[in-house]
């Protein structure tokens, strides 16, 4: 998961798309979780978190098998998009949704940047 930083930060257009994003969100993959800090569109840090959960603005939570299907290089229908998973109730997006929704194209591409690398 830590490769998210290098993948996103090397994508200049994606960083530009998120140039007004400063937030920290929780990424939950089954029973594991990471805190992802974003600063001006760059991924500042990706930190594995344990039982003590840090503060976060919003959380993306899905079972491991669903994330694995989302992160396939050629995802099947229902796993091509975060909102597709929300519609099928395999992903929940919780918390203060403002940074996520107001930068939806950015966060969709950010999460998709792991495609073909974690599946």
């Amino acid at each position, binding site marked *: 998961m830590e490769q998210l930083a290098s993948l996103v930060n090397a994508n200049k257009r994606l960083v530009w798309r998120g140039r007004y994003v400063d937030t920290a969100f929780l990424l939950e993959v089954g029973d594991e979780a990471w805190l992802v800090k974003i600063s001006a569109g760059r991924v500042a840090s990706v930190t594995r978190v344990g039982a003590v959960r840090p503060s976060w603005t919003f959380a993306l939570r899905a079972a491991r098998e669903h994330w694995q299907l989302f992160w396939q290089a*050629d995802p099947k*229908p229902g796993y091509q*998009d975060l*909102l*597709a998973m*929300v519609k099928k109730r395999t992903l929940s997006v919780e918390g203060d949704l403002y940074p996520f*929704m107001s930068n939806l*194209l950015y966060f*969709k591409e950010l999460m998709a940047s792991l495609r073909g690398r974690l599946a």
Partner: protein
Amino acid sequence: MNVHFEPVIGRYMHVELLGKPHRVYVEEAGPANGIPLMCLHTAGADTRQYRAVMNDARILKDYRVIAFDMPWHGKSSPPAGFQNADYQLTSRDYLDLIIGMCDALQLDRPVAMGCSIGGRIALHLALEYPQRFRAIIGLQAGAHVDPYYDLNWLHRPDVHGGEMAAGIVSGLMCPKSPEAERWETLWHYMQGGPGVFKGDLHFYVIDGDIRARVGEIDTTRCPLYLLTGEYDYSCSPEDTRDLQRRIKGTQAVIMENLGHFPMSENPSQFLRYLMPVLDQIRAANSSKNI
């Protein structure tokens, strides 16, 4: 310099719709005596979605393809005084708009083809106006959709409406559709006026629910074709199969490698599915004329 013009002609029609004067942008291509094919765009978008259908020589041989930007959309203006009220599309107004435009254009039993909200209203047309159409084609047509995000995100001053709308619809397409066509489709969404996409979705999510009545559609009065892209999670293949089960005589095809905007996100793939339907309608039309 190597330039060319498309066979598409765009004009502005002044017409009274819903009891008010309107200036409506209308495009058409194909022979004046061709079978009229009225194309209805999706929520928050405009006629540009049908650019490939309007440019396909095989279609233009037999069909007069027509599309109009709904009031508030594309190059059509909202009615005078629009600033004083919210835009909210209802089933009744949507039906009256389409029938009004068919009357204004003096179309003789056109084929209606609509996508998304246009696919939903196609079901309403099949139910309420089968005598007015020689066939109806519903693209991404479902009887109902449950909301999966708060529609208020689409119209608030602290969120960019165009980028919000594009973000909402981007994943509805097949990821393998050509990048340029996918982004062209998103650009149409980025250009929508404030609150227009949300106002259309009032019909799609709330007012246009036709689940209780689809069983009454009589396909012997007007043939109904349903074409649905497999990647669409807004109007899903399951929704279309459900319609096929409930409406006797419906012909439905689930389209591979397409999503919610088949005619716009990957035109050449879509035309592989549309052509047999148009050929079938043309053949039925010819046999009646003999």
